[in-house]
């Protein structure tokens, strides 16, 4: 599904003394199957933007188009489109409520009007996708799972709706390194097997650099940059100016370069940085 955001503005509490402009003329596109990273400091309007993309918030002005149709229209078509856009909130584990994991994951498909068997099949598939064994964990209460497992179960709840666009709002926040790795691998896996559009919000530049093809930088409710991941992370000075940074691999190369080594500073991934460093040090006299 192709998502197109056109001139989107959102004002909270319009007309009241604490009126705030959260989004101020945002425009961008997500092509089908694309992996887009969204970065920006806290309060830049990222979460507000995400909630517009599946129609939870209505724009003050501007439109959100999914395959060319305005998702905020009152038609059945727009409703159906909204359902094909899955949104995973920050700390999604706080939305778990059912007595068993499998029932909780079934909640979404059930709301889509699927039969009991279909729901179950979808739920089991989604649980496998996030790396939870439905036979082992399916009947457990969601509240007995570990933090990382809870998070994955909650993400499965959204995946079970088989969205064509998956929006993830800081899916790794507050997890330990293993939990983070599991979630990131799961996202990669979903991407590969389901071929869906993914929009990932993250404060971890490393995660964005490792996964995204294109990066949007949001600052004060406006799009500051919209370019390929390499291009965005090449603009380190500008990123630092708004409280962001280059990925840690690039920062390491920057430091080496500052100490007089000739290294390729445009590298953003850990693997390539490793090779580059090995290459440079082999030439070491």
């Amino acid at each position, binding site marked *: 599904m192709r998502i197109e955001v056109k001139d989107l503005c959102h004002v909270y509490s319009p007309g009241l003394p604490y009126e705030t402009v959260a989004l101020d003329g945002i425009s961008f596109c997500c092509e089908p199957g694309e992996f887009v990273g969204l970065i920006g400091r806290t309060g830049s309007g990222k979460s507000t933007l995400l909630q517009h993309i599946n129609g*939870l918030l209505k724009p003050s002005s501007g439109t959100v188009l999914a395959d060319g149709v305005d998702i905020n229209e009152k038609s059945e078509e727009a409703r159906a489109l909204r359902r094909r856009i899955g949104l995973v*909130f920050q700390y999604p584990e*706080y*939305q778990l*409520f059912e007595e068993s994991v499998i029932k909780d994951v079934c*909640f979404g498909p059930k*709301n889509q009007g699927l039969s009991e068997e279909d729901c179950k099949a979808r739920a089991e598939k989604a649980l496998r996708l996030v790396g939870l064994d439905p036979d082992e964990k399916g009947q457990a209460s969601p509240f007995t799972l570990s933090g990382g497992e809870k998070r994955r179960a909650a993400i499965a709840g*959204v995946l079970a*709706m088989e969205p064509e666009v998956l929006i993830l709002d800081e899916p790794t926040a507050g997890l330990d390194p293993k939990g983070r790795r599991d979630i990131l691998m799961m996202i990669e896996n979903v991407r590969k097997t389901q071929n869906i559009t993914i929009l990932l919000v993250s404060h971890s530049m490393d995660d964005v650099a490792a996964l995204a093809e294109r990066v949007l930088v949001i600052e004060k409710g406006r799009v500051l940059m919209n370019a390929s991941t390499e291009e965005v992370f090449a603009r380190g000075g500008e990123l630092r100016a708004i409280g962001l940074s280059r990925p840690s691999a690039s920062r390491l190369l920057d430091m080496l370069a500052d100490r007089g080594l000739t290294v390729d500073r445009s590298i953003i991934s850990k693997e390539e940085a490793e090779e580059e460093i090995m290459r440079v040090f082999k030439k070491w006299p």
Partner: protein
Amino acid sequence: MAIKDITLGQFYPAESPVHRLDPRTKIIGTMLFLVSLFLVNKMGGFALCLALLAFVVAVSKIPLSYIFRGLKPVLALIVLTMLINMFLSDGEPLWSFAFLKLTKEGIYRAAFMAIRLVLLIFGTTLLTLSTKPISLTDGLERLLKPFSRLGMPAHELAMMMSISLRFIPTLMEETDRIMKAQTARGADFESGNLMQRAKSLIPLLVPLFVSAFRIASELAMAMEARCYHGGEGRTRMNPMVFARGDLYALLVMTAYLAAIIFVPVF
């Protein structure tokens, strides 16, 4: 639209002598004012009440529209009281229909009751407009302290009140968040019959309860970690001071009450 837009309490921030008064003074003053409203039995007395109220409002720098806003929720009650008094009082009938009769005494009593109710609300509204909810509970705690000898847990009551006030916005935000998350999973909170709607609240209420317990246990831990052990021997960061302004305010209130009781015109 969003739940978090709902404002809690109605404190109107301003720099005024009324805002600066000790909350205890304001609570006592308001109580005296409320008592005086029930001592008044002539229209002349209300003129004095109104004059005092107008004076305090003028000093407090609170816009009149905010004070009138307090009337809105109780407007129906006032109208009902007026109607009952107008039609169901004994006296010289001006107009009658079946068991309803409009009497001169009835109209007078209706006006009297309405004025009393309106002034009652103005008085209490003024208190909440000029005092932050937290200082209000602080003031109450201090005022209730003498009763703790009789076994009343004054400090605990006040602490409970301040904690619940503090966490209402947090829980509202939490509700908003969970509601959105479940809506994103296709939950529908708005359509269907009563039974279906009640059922649709389960995905909202269960996570909300879980969150509330989590927040409560985290708060308890944080308080414990800072050595909270109840009200015994506890001192305040901003002790309430009875200043010169408070003395003047109480003198004005005493003079006012004396006038209501002893001056025959009122």
